[in-house]
């Protein structure tokens, strides 16, 4: 489903907020691509800038926000330069969003059929009866049983999981090219979460939408993402394919993040945690913002910001540890185990490729 064609290009994005205490530099030079049909997960600590990044893609920044630089190219047009009218045409049509709490994005006083049909009437000038017919199809597609009878129900008549399905139906009714999902399953329990995630995967196959998925549940990321971007203090510090980030992470912040989540196999007295608090974005530190909390910090980290070092064609990390002259460090235990698994996977892949190669040769006359 994925292709190499980028449908969204974010470059050097800088976003500030004016507050009574000063200017918060919330997004500090963020660049990434979103490819057609892929799921890109953005992970990172609370306050690292995940939501602000995606809201700027929707053209939905708060009143006290200002774009201090950069561009967001969507089909050769810069979203940051679009008029309100153009943005309204974009939202809910080509780019749609689902939020954490389904109740806040649904209108409690409107029948759900009407809510799902509305984007069709607004963006496609469709007649009400035709839009409602399509809404009914969409309700079936997202797995609302007995859709014919429930189309005239109100949101409060549905359970949390069903409401999130309705929100997804609204977001997808126009077959958007980009779907932004900001913690879409955090409020749901594992059983319902599994249903919603399966639904998102299926729908992505059907309508080949690209998804930007924000969550703090790394288990969900492992199952959903093709690629992962890790954010810290308003910057992306590492990005790569889901395997590269989970099995061969290079940034100490990514190490900390992966180690602090227990799995069903974790035992022991103490969970590794990242001590300390993130930096104050009113006055971001010089050098690497993670340095004060980083047990692997080098002297240079407090002086100069690390550039991105290339790990592979698809994997980059901004840490001085990747500099050729940097001392070799031993990552946390859990990370070493992950790297070993990665080595094994790579070896298996190589063997498979070799076998494949041999077979092909044998087939030749």
């Amino acid at each position, binding site marked *: 489903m994925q292709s190499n064609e980028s449908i969204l290009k974010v470059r050097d994005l800088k976003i500030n907020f004016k507050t009574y205490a000063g200017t918060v530099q919330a997004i500090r030079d963020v660049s990434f691509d979103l490819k057609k049909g892929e799921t890109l997960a953005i992970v990172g*600590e*609370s*306050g690292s800038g995940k939501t602000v990044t995606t809201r700027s893609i929707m053209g939905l920044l708060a009143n006290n926000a200002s774009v201090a630089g950069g561009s967001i190219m969507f089909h050769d047009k810069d979203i940051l330069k679009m008029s309100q009218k153009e943005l309204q045409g974009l939202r809910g049509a080509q780019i749609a969003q689902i939020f954490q709490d389904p109740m806040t994005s649904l209108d409690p006083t409107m029948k759900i059929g009407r809510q799902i049909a509305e984007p069709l009437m607004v963006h496609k000038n469709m007649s009400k009866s035709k839009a409602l017919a399509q809404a009914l199809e969409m309700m079936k597609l997202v797995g609302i049983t007995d859709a014919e009878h429930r189309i005239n129900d109100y949101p409060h008549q549905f*359970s*949390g999981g069903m409401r999130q399905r309705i929100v997804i139906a609204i977001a997808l009714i126009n077959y958007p090219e980009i779907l932004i999902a900001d913690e879409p399953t955090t409020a*749901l*329990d*594992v*059983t*319902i*979460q*599994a249903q919603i*995630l399966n639904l998102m995967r299926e729908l992505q196959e059907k309508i080949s939408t690209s998804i930007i998925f924000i969550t*703090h*549940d*790394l*288990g*969900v*990321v*492992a*199952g959903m993402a093709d690629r992962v971007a890790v954010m810290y203090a308003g910057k992306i510090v590492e990005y790569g394919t*889901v*395997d590269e980030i*989970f*099995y061969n992470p290079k940034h100490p912040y990514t190490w*900390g*993040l*992966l180690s*602090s*989540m*227990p*799995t*069903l196999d*974790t*035992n022991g*007295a*103490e*969970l*590794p*945690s*990242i*001590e300390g*608090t993130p930096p104050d974005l009113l006055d971001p530190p010089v050098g690497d913002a993670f340095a004060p909390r980083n047990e692997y910090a080098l002297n240079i980290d407090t002086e100069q910001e690390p550039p991105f070092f290339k790990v592979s064609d698809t994997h980059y990390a901004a840490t001085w540890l990747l500099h050729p002259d940097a001392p070799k460090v031993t990552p946390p235990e859990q990370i070493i185990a992950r790297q070993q*698994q990665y080595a094994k*996977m790579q070896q298996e892949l190589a063997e498979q490729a070799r076998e494949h190669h041999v077979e092909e040769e044998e087939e030749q006359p």
Partner: protein
Amino acid sequence: MEDQNAKKVLEVSHLKQYFNVGKKDEVKAVDDISFDIYEGETFGLVGESGSGKTTVGRAIIHLYHPTDGSIKFNGDEVVGMKDKAKLQSLRQNMQMIFQDPYASLNPRMKVRDIIAEGIDINHLAKSKEEREKMVADLLDTVGLNRDHASRYPHEFSGGQRQRIGIARALAVEPEFIIADEPISALDVSIQAQVVNLLKQLQRERHLTYLFIAHDLSMVKYISDRIGVLHYGRMLEIGDADEVYNHPLHDYTRSLLSAVPAPDPEYERTRTQLAYDPKYEDGSKDRELVEIAPRHWVQASQDEIEMYQKRAQEQGLPLV
């Protein structure tokens, strides 16, 4: 944690908590459940949304009057307790930490007064100086700064706010703490900090916890024993490792198979088990039966053999 002669801090038996009794919308939120919690252990309660976890917690801490059943705390019956001195001691010895660290802290009160609320109600400080010192010590304990006492909740991050909630619960030196989704609202790195803090406090103060959460990996990590709740009924109880590694009830199996792991390879092959509720429908009388030592499953008389076979297949000894 618990052994044969360990003391029972809490004994819940045949607890029923119905809402809107006799009306059309009657809800049997908790329907005849029994379990014990031993001194110094963490009992984890898991189950899907609406299964009755919070209701159990609120009934135990005396916020509801149970429809039926008994709740004993240190041997004293809590249901219908009227004795003022006993109620006072109950309130002091049992504390609850809530899910949403923001909603549960009064935004107009300074951190000092939030933390000291229990101290004041229970007259635990003899002077203003002593009160101040107790607050400062509590802030220390939960890893906050003494200067934080004169700030307001909105000046803190989610993790820090949850620490304030923990300090408030600790202020009255309780023996038993009910933590209802204490970390669900926090991000991964802060979850680890709060969980480590709870564990450390347990070691130092010999606390007993009822830990409620929907994140099964975290519950397994923190709990000694686990109870699985579904539709207000307890379906399985056992040691945390055993319930996770050798679940006996179909519901537990299905629930565990839905937990995503931070491991893409595993995720690509993980298959979720569909759940067929045939072993918990209303057609039979069922009660918790000890199948393997300390491992209980809700079963009818004619289902016991099936569960024994399941246990044996997984190499568990039978009772």
